[in-house]
């Protein structure tokens, strides 16, 4: 599913002293099949943006019959109507079937393990499955789907299915929570900080899992992150959010060449980009795509050795 956002704006608590503008005229296109990264500071609007994608936050226009475009600030041209198209779903329309949309656009929130609630792992994973099912599923169907979902996230069905999710370890809980979202086989999978709070090994494992999901189950994977190494290492393309705007959107290889700009926005750059900059100051030019593997190979090649 192709995702096209045009002139997307959103304000929390409008018309009150607490009003905060979270999105400000965001234009972004995410193609099918991408492993897309969204980078930004806390409060840059990245989480707000992804919550639009499966209708958890609706476009304000959807409530009125004759929506008016948002009022422009004084001295600026009027903003055109916000538009958000996810596959064949037009999210600005009131008639959109949001259940059908959410079935196809899965969303894993930050710290998803805090949303586990059921008595057994099987029940928790099956929750979404049962909610989205058109007809009542037989126990066999449910078991097969849950088994497949647990297996792809790297858990043994026979071992964990009957356990309470609260008896698992932190990493396992997160896997169960991810399984609970992908069990309905969404085409687009969105993850908000999927590796937050994990140790380095756990982070690598989660990223490996996402790549596997991207290859086998979900056509598009979108991750929100502020870990630049994660973005450089994994994404085909990344968008930078700053103060509610999508300031740029390009493959990480090009993005991190503009390291100064990112630092200017208060963002970090990957370790490899810092090393490249340090080498450049000493007159050594390393042209790499900012993944650790490629960087190491290029440096070894520069020294005349072999990878």
């Amino acid at each position, binding site marked *: 599913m192709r995702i096209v956002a045009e002139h997307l704006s959103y304000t929390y608590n409008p018309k009150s002293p607490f009003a905060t503008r979270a999105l400000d005229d965001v234009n972004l296109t995410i193609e099918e099949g991408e492993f897309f990264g969204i980078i930004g500071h806390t409060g840059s609007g990245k989480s707000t943006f992804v919550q639009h994608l499966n209708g958890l936050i609706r476009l304000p226009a959807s409530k009125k019959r004759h929506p008016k475009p948002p009022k422009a600030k004084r001295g600026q041209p009027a903003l055109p109507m916000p538009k958000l198209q996810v596959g064949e779903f037009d999210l600005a329309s009131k008639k959109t079937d949001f259940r059908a949309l959410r079935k196809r656009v899965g969303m894993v929130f930050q710290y998803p393990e805090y949303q586990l609630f059921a008595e057994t792992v099987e029940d928790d994973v099956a929750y979404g499955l049962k*909610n989205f099912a058109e007809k009542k599923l037989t126990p066999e169907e449910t078991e097969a789907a849950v088994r497949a979902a647990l297996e792809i996230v790297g858990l043994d069905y026979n071992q964990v299915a009957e356990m309470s999710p609260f008896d698992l370890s932190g990493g396992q809980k997160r896997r169960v929570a991810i399984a609970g979202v992908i069990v309905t086989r969404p085409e687009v999978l969105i993850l908000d900080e999927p590796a937050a709070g994990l140790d380095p090994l756990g982070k690598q494992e989660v990223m490996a899992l996402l790549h596997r999901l991207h290859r086998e189950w979900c056509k598009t994977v979108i991750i929100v992150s502020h870990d630049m190494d994660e973005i450089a290492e994994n994404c085909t393309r990344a968008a930078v959010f700053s103060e509610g705007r999508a300031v740029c959107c390009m493959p990480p290889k090009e993005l991190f060449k503009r390291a100064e700009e990112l630092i200017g926005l208060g963002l970090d750059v990957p370790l490899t980009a810092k090393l490249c900059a340090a080498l450049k100051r000493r007159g050594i030019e390393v042209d790499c795509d900012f993944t650790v593997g490629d960087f190491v190979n290029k440096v070894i090649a520069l020294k005349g050795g072999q990878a």
Partner: protein
Amino acid sequence: MKDVSFGQYYPVKSFVHNMDPRIKLFFLVAFIVAIFLAGNFYGLAACLVVLIFVIAFSRVPILKVLRAIRGVLFLVVFTAAINVLFRTGETVYWQYGILCVSKEGIVFSAFLICRLILLVVCSSMLTYTTTPVELTDGIESVLKPLTWIKIPVHVLADVMSIALRMIPVLMEETERIRSAQKARGGDIEGGGLIKKVRALVPILVPLILSAFRRADELGDAMDARCYMASKKRTKYKKLRLTWRDLIGFLVAAALIAGVVLLNVYEAFLWLPI
């Protein structure tokens, strides 16, 4: 769930915001006493006038103030209906069994409605114009004499301020968990009562767990910073009375005196009813 405006602090600077919380508490108590002392509509009208001045000087928008009534609308309507239907009087308009609509009943209901609304609006004015921290400081200061009979007032005040502090946090958490379960197709909108209650389980279980987790973490953090409930603690912001508080005190005193006078001299006033 999203509308948490009822009883929430409204952050502007104003005369009322700057008053000492203790005086505001005293004012509220005096106002409530005045409402219940008032034996006729003149007394209530006097209260209303004072309340309108309070609202005007607090710079809280009138719509926000009226929204406070919405929260207790059911209670108000229910009380009024009971009184209209069951109170007997001299001039009876309609009677059926024990149900009876009389002129006295209607007048009394109207009186009750006014009382309740004044009560609610004045109490919410206190929370609109006073931060929870100020409020607990004020309560702690007012209740200080109770320490003489070994009641740990400052501990209670700390417990209260933590509880108040956590309300918005838990609201936010609820919203997050709800969104997460909504993304998995769980929805508490629609369906019968039993279905609705069952749909709440996936929200309540994580919410309660997270409340306990937060409580544990906060307890650890307070321990780590050597919080001792028994020690004498100093305040970051000391409460001081100013000329504003004198005005508040005088207005409250004048209100009570006025209401009492209106009760006494009722006979000399022209009464429409």
